[in-house]
């Protein structure tokens, strides 16, 4: 039953991501592109606080929701599925080395978002969806995106960790 709740929450966040961008004026930040990676942030939380060493829920979620993002928002299958899965896999391996607290979560968040965004940029450059030079990419896109998503990650930290730990214990 917890699984159903958890998937529903991530699904709603995936839906909100698209609606929020439509309702918020996008050009208020001038030249900077801020990409919301809310689904990824949630997946990182699941990997750190919900999964134990033996279980692989976060990996399955990464596959499934990556594929959903692909279908709904890009029309190119596989890109997000692959990058989310790899990112979550690496983070899951690293969680053994650190205690789970706010600082380590922020570190994992920075690592995960950077990795995902760069991987997606690389794939889209290879298949010629974008021709943005990498210097511009890093300054106008990567850095603001990391900052904004870390703010989001820190804001939801107290709410989401309590729930996740409770769900993990009752499993």
């Amino acid at each position, binding site marked *: 039953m917890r699984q159903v709740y958890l998937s529903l929450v991530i699904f709603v966040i995936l839906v909100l*991501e*698209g609606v929020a961008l439509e309702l918020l004026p996008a050009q208020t930040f001038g030249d900077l592109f801020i*990409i919301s990676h809310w689904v990824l942030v949630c997946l990182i939380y699941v990997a750190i606080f919900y999964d134990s060493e033996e279980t692989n829920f976060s990996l399955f979620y990464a596959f499934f929701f990556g594929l*959903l993002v692909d279908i709904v*928002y890009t*029309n190119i299958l*596989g890109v997000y*599925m692959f990058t989310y899965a790899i990112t979550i896999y690496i983070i899951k391996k690293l969680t053994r080395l650190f205690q789970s607290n706010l600082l380590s979560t922020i570190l994992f968040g920075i690592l995960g978002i950077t990795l995902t965004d760069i991987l997606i940029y690389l794939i889209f450059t290879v298949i010629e969806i974008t021709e943005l030079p990498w210097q511009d990419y890093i300054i106008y896109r990567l850095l603001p995106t990391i900052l904004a998503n870390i703010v989001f990650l820190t804001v939801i930290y107290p709410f989401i960790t309590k729930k996740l730990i409770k769900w993990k214990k009752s499993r």
Partner: protein
Amino acid sequence: MSLFRKKRLFILLIGIIILVVLIGYSLRDRDKLTIPEQFVNDTVGWVQSIIYTPVNFFTDIFTSIDDIKNTYQENKILKEKLSEYKTLIYEVQELTEENEELRNSIDLTDSIRDFNPIQATVISRSPERWMELVTLNKGSQAGIKKDMAVITADGMIGKIQSTSPYTSTVQLLTGFDQFNRISATISREDGKDIFGLIEEYDEESNSLLFKIIDESDKNLEEDELVVSSGLGGVFPSGLPIGTVKDIIPDQYGLTQTALIEPAADMYDINHVIVVDRSLPGDEDVADDEGDE
């Protein structure tokens, strides 16, 4: 331990192969989405419209309050303009009637200008901004088909990229690449129209590249209106696309490229009209027309 390493490497390789196959499959020129994709799109679209409607209601209230502040001044200006338009409306009516009569007299009833409008609302926008896609709340059940033009009151904003029964995806002009060309024209008096192709969106100058295929003895001027010409066979003619911002010669100096600033705002899109051309465009016919 070495067994595990091998297994891991094996999985990674299989993952990369699947990725390449999937990307190759989706980059192919697909006519239709697969049924699972359509189902997912419709489900997500349904949830999006549930969330979108009440939230949009509240944001609308705030914009309305903002609008009320300016109402008095706007009203004054609009009244002045209205009196000018009254005579214009009369003239247009006369002209339309005359046009119809003339068309009837030569048995030419269909025109590539005519289209059936399909009203739709934007319910979401792709959060990752590599692909400029927005989702509409109507799909193939409402008569929307792939490659139809999408316009707002100001001008063209894009074309339909894919449809599901109850939602459809629009590729915005800002995401156009060399595979999405629009045949366009600048209207001049005495039949000296300038024809060309809108080739792609240039992110550096934030404008569309309008490549002129005519020999360029007719000098372009800034602020001229570029409209679709309807010769591509899909879009009707006369949809405003944008205004000329700057003109650059190509590297051999033979043709000119104009930078076009899109007429419609690509960020603040709410209600759109999907344009269903009345006159069916046959691919072969369109090619012939383009050659002339």
